[in-house]
């Protein structure tokens, strides 16, 4: 039982960071109808900048803010300079450009910072609280949960309560009609990219301290888990991303703990097959709303 509780908390804290990154994928999907394969590399780039600032100034929080602001800027730049000029008649063109961006970002980061792991400090202690011999969560885990929760609330408010959010969704779903109705489609796209990249950067700042450290490829594996989580929950649903992230985190941990680490990817595949065969648009898809 102790073992089960321990694994549950371990899985939840892993799942929370998957959820954070899955949220970024959901956001960009809602805003631009694209799965941004460069999201991970972009987040790493801003995390490098953030940690450079943090180590130069000695203030983690300044670096944290810079990283997220950097995400906003990088997202906007990528949209304005590159993505805007991609022919979107085939959805794959965007995917290939994003993959190209991944290589460029990783190459440039490698040139500037080298291909070694760099330490990534966490702003709070990562030592977990223990109650009755059972290891629970650390302060940092709680911070991650809090941040993820805040992002979900803000996103939900943005998309359901503000006209900007509504315009963003409209611009993504039906750009031509939206344009006729006076929605600045281009601006909405830029905004969507900027916001998604900022959430991605936040996720990067949350996940990198829990893994091997800063590295040009630091988010590659996370991207896979987070994408799986987003697909599982439904790419249109922020709540789905969070649930998907937690489910994937728990599953990976339970399977690693009880059956062995090598079995875990198979378990994820089986879960995906089972879920998607019954709900082809993810757990939290709106009924019958087929994606574009």
């Amino acid at each position, binding site marked *: 039982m102790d073992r089960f509780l321990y694994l549950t908390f371990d899985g939840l804290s892993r799942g929370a960071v998957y959820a954070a990154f899955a949220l970024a994928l959901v956001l960009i999907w809602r805003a631009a109808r694209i799965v941004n394969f460069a999201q991970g590399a972009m987040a790493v780039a801003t995390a490098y900048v953030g940690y450079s600032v943090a180590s130069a100034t000695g203030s983690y929080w300044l670096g944290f803010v810079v990283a997220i602001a950097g995400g906003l800027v990088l997202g906007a730049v990528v949209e304005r300079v590159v993505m805007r000029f991609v022919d979107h008649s085939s959805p794959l063109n965007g995917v290939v450009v994003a993959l190209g961006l991944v290589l460029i970002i990783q190459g440039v980061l490698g040139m500037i910072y080298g*291909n070694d792991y760099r330490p990534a400090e966490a702003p709070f202690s990562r030592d977990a609280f223990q109650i009755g011999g059972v290891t629970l969560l650390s302060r940092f885990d709680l911070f991650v949960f809090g941040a993820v929760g805040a992002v979900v609330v803000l996103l939900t408010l943005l998309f359901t309560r503000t006209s900007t959010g509504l315009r963003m969704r409209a611009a993504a779903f039906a750009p031509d009609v939206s344009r006729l109705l006076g929605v600045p489609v281009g601006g909405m796209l830029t905004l969507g990219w900027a916001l998604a990249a900022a959430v991605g950067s936040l996720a990067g700042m949350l996940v990198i301290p829990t893994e091997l450290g800063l590295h040009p490829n630091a988010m590659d594996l996370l991207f896979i888990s987070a994408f799986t989580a987003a697909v599982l929950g439904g790419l249109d649903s922020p709540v789905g991303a969070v649930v998907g992230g937690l489910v994937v985190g728990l599953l990976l941990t339970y399977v690693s703990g009880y059956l062995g680490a090598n079995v875990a990817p198979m378990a994820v595949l089986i879960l*995906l097959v089972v879920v998607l065969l019954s709900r082809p648009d993810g757990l939290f898809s709106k009924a019958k709303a087929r994606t574009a």
Partner: protein
Amino acid sequence: MTIVERLATTTKNRQKSRQNRFVPLAGVLVGAAVIVVLTYTLPPFRNYQLATIGAYLCVTAGLTVLTGLNGQLSLGHGALMATGAYTLALWQDRFNLLLPGIVLAVVVTTLAGGVIGLAAARLRGPYLAGLTLAVAVVVPSITSTFDNTFNSDQGLSVALNPPPGVIPVEQWQVWICWAGALLTVLFLAYLVRGRFGRDMRAVRDDETAAKLAGVGVARTQVLAFVVSAACAGLSGALFAVLAQSVSPGAFPLTLSLFLVMAIVIGGLGRLTGALIGAFLLVALPSVAQSIAEDAGSQHLEGNLALTFFGVVLVVVMLAAPGGLASMKFPRKIRKQKGQE
């Protein structure tokens, strides 16, 4: 209409299109002749690269039909290649009969493709991408869970007889790989011209309309997946022959992603595009590395090559959204686009 539909248009405008007056068989025979001549003129390493292009062409040709003509995106074809490669390795270990082994590899991968295809037919867009991605990353997990059979990360070596007579190994490899590649291309070229090709395009363009016209949507999608899986299996088996070894690390997720990049950059839905893509998969990394080498600094070497590779992808995609295969006749395309 999207660029990916160009092949559909050319087929519809069969009378108008010059391209279609040529019989695929003739093209393949010309190709075979060119290859044979090349194998006698190229030095060994170029022959090896040529063989690798042939092995890649099998999978890119199948994938471009699946993605370009049927509209299904697969990020898991690397795993299907691994299936073919491992099948051949296990067969060769016991029997050492290459041709039946390759056939078996294709059969086994076709079955695997059928299973994935059944699931894939229910999924669209990013959900299909997500599922196939999960398939792609499961390969190392399988090889280490069943390590008595697959020998974990280190993989298996592939028993091969030396080439007959005094033929150099690399030349022999080209012949094997290109025999496979040209047969694949021939098969696919006839397939996409026939009824099945029409069904695939109909399903891609509008599923509801296709259904109304009596096309079995799910059936067509599963079949398309199966066909491309068979091609991937053949490709995997050929890679096993080329490398004389198989290991999970040789079929990572990046391979699956690079395959998709190759067919898009080459020109989606076109066999010519698949060929260009296969060529780029071999040429671009080595060009990138030699450019980076000339540029100097030891510590930048690998990263400079990566960056160069990325820049090429982005620039080509922006300059030629229809892929390199479309670059020659931009006007014609626009006209065709307008017609539909």
